[in-house]
């Protein structure tokens, strides 16, 4: 790109119109947004949707923590509690985390980073968004009808013949997840085709930003795993409707089979959730260290490796389900493989930081927090993979803490990091850095208060999914709940800060972080077709030594 700086940098002295206008100004009116085929606008619509889902899931999380302030009934009964934690899990997983980074940030930045004008199939992209909306509406309907109380995993026989709660709510919620799955599949198909076929001239596989590699690996999982979730839920719905006999033990079915089917999707789905976050962090670490990513190909391949290994380990969710010992041993051994690509990433990020010109702006804080929190989440995962400790810790708060460290400490921190990192490019506005740092600090402190405590609770035997507990856990639970409210305040502050920037924020420069990444080479906000001219890529996205002064300047 360096030799073509004139081609990619905005020179803004030509007359003409059309693709030079920012995508935000290209057309106006709600209708033009709703029928847009522009990947950037679809990304923004996804962003708004997932943030709404995040808010809803967060409210349910706070309700859970309020109930756990004291033993016994605090604000709700046991049945209601079951519904509340189920909704928290289902909304956060299916409506927020899975589409958060890929569908919102990925949609916006994947084509830009490739130097493409759009994703390969823009109509499919819009369709996938509307399928998401339909799924979200169905999930809402399930809440109106009466709530699901099966946990987000919909284990049979709770889901196939629940007598408590509303029977139909399960149908609506599983129908919603079924629908959301197709949205995810279509996004995956679109991204893979885009990465393969839409790269700008000179954009070789070795010059792909690591965010693209991560999104690509994620898409592979979305295409290969999500259909299994769809057929699982279809079987579940049919089981309820017609008594197929596949999951119902009374007529010869096997409820454990449902767990196999479910986790064949949902374990790889964990990597759908975490991989894009890792991609974001790679971008952030490089930009704020002003340094080439250490061991670029290793980081790229570890994304693909995680995606593939992720398919081989699902049985570690089923150590106490009555699964065969042979299967248990194989799954336990394979689970340790996951640590290798994860370790490669952590090691290479640290290698990048080492000797880098580090600046601690708010996105970088999220990036660094990711490394710390994901390491804790990842390493505690090994406790579960080890059979002897895994069976002891199974279904305790230790598990809850572990996956929150990965999902929240990992993905959500990366998501907010990415949001802060790319916010100026997306909206053309700068947020207030001081407030952003305060928001981060509260989120970070609150998060660790909430979930470090839960490691202790779990190792002492506090089981998950109970609304009641023994009196000796009271102090720890209250401390954990306090942390949850601090998270709430932190997130609120982040939202206020970002929203305020839209109204009164300073105009963002082209490249506020002085990054060498491709997406910063286009004007802010990007024009309708992303670049004023098709860029020719002549260097890698982290080649600070090859980038020109003009490219690394703010404007």
């Amino acid at each position, binding site marked *: 790109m360096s030799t073509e700086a004139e081609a990619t940098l905005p020179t803004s002295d030509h007359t003409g119109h059309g693709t030079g206008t920012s995508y935000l100004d290209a057309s106006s009116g709600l209708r033009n947004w709703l029928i847009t085929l522009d990947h950037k606008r679809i990304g923004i619509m996804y962003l708004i949707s997932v943030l709404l889902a995040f808010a809803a899931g967060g409210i349910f999380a706070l309700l859970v923590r309020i109930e756990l302030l004291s033993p016994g009934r605090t604000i709700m009964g046991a049945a209601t509690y079951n519904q509340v934690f189920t909704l928290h899990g289902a909304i956060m997983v299916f409506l927020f985390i899975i589409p958060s980074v890929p569908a919102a940030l990925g949609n916006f930045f994947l084509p830009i980073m490739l130097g493409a004008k759009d994703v390969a199939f823009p109509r499919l992209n819009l369709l996938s968004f509307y399928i998401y909306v339909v799924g979200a509406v169905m999930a809402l309907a399930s809440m109106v009808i009466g709530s699901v109380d099966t946990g987000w995993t919909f284990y049979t026989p709770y889901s196939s013949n629940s007598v408590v709660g509303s029977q139909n709510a399960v149908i609506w919620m599983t129908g919603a997840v079924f629908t959301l799955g197709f949205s995810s599949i279509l996004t995956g198909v679109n991204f893979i085709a885009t990465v393969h076929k839409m790269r700008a001239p000179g954009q070789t596989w070795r010059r792909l930003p690591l965010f693209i590699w991560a999104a690509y690996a994620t898409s592979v999982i979305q295409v290969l795993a999500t259909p299994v979730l769809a057929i699982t839920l279809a079987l579940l719905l049919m089981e309820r409707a017609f008594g197929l006999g596949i999951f119902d033990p009374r007529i010869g079915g096997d409820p454990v089979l449902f767990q196999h089917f479910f986790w*064949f999707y949902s374990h790889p789905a964990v990597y759908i959730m975490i991989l894009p976050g890792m991609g974001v962090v790679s971008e952030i670490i490089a930009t704020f260290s002003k340094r080439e990513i250490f061991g670029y190909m290793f980081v790229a391949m570890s994304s693909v490796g995680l995606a593939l290994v992720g*398919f081989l380990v699902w049985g570690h969710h089923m150590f106490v*389900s*009555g699964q065969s*010992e*042979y299967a248990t041993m*194989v799954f336990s051994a394979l689970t340790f493989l996951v640590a290798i690509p994860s370790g490669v990433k952590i090691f290479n990020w640290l290698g990048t930081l080492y000797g880098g010109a580090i600046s601690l702006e708010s996105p970088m804080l999220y990036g660094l927090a990711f490394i710390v929190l994901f390491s804790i989440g990842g390493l505690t995962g090994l406790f579960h993979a080890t059979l002897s400790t895994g069976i002891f810790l199974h279904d305790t708060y230790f598990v809850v803490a572990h996956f929150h460290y990965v999902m929240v400490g990992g993905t959500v921190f990366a998501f907010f990091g990415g949001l802060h990192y790319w916010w100026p490019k997306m909206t053309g506005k700068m947020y207030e850095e001081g407030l952003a740092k305060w928001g981060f600090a509260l989120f970070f402190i609150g998060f660790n208060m909430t979930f470090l405590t839960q490691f202790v609770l779990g190792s002492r035997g506090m089981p998950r999914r109970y609304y009641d507990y023994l009196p000796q856990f009271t102090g720890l639970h209250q401390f954990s709940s306090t942390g949850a409210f601090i998270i709430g305040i932190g997130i609120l502050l982040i939202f206020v800060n970002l929203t305020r920037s839209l109204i009164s924020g300073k105009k963002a420069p082209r490249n506020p972080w002085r990054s060498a990444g491709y997406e910063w080479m286009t004007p802010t906000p990007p024009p309708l077709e992303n670049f004023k001219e098709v860029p020719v890529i002549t260097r890698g996205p982290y080649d600070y030594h090859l980038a020109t002064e003009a490219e690394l300047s703010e404007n």
Partner: protein
Amino acid sequence: MSHEAHDKIDDGGVHPHIAPVKMYIAIFLGLIFFTVVTVAVGFVHLGPLNLLVAIVIATIKAALVVIFFMHLKDDAKFNALVFVGSLLFAGVFLVYTMNDTGHRGQIDPEQGVEVLPSTGEFAPGGPARPARSVAAEGHEGEPVTADVVLPEHAPQAH
């Protein structure tokens, strides 16, 4: 954006390889032939081989369809990888799941303990297995067959 499948002409236009009608007819006749074979074999008593033969013939037919009707022969290599890769993952799904369902509740040799599938309780020292039909009787390590484990089987607790 290079395409080995569309060699020679590189003007950005689509120049597919057009196969003769004869080829399509020949493939179709081959498919019919294998259908007749598979039905015929279905009426012959082959025991466990029956499944194997059925799968092999079906796979030959599927390969004919994929390679010739779907033009994977002349297509980009990556498309073939997508197809074969998805079959591979389906295979992982099948094999791993059956590794569990075929071996439930069997002996844990390290502990010298056997689970009684009928009660889910531990049987110290590994006593004789509970009564099961002769057909299902197998030596150690043989899959526990349906009629022992599965009538009213709750998930076999350990």
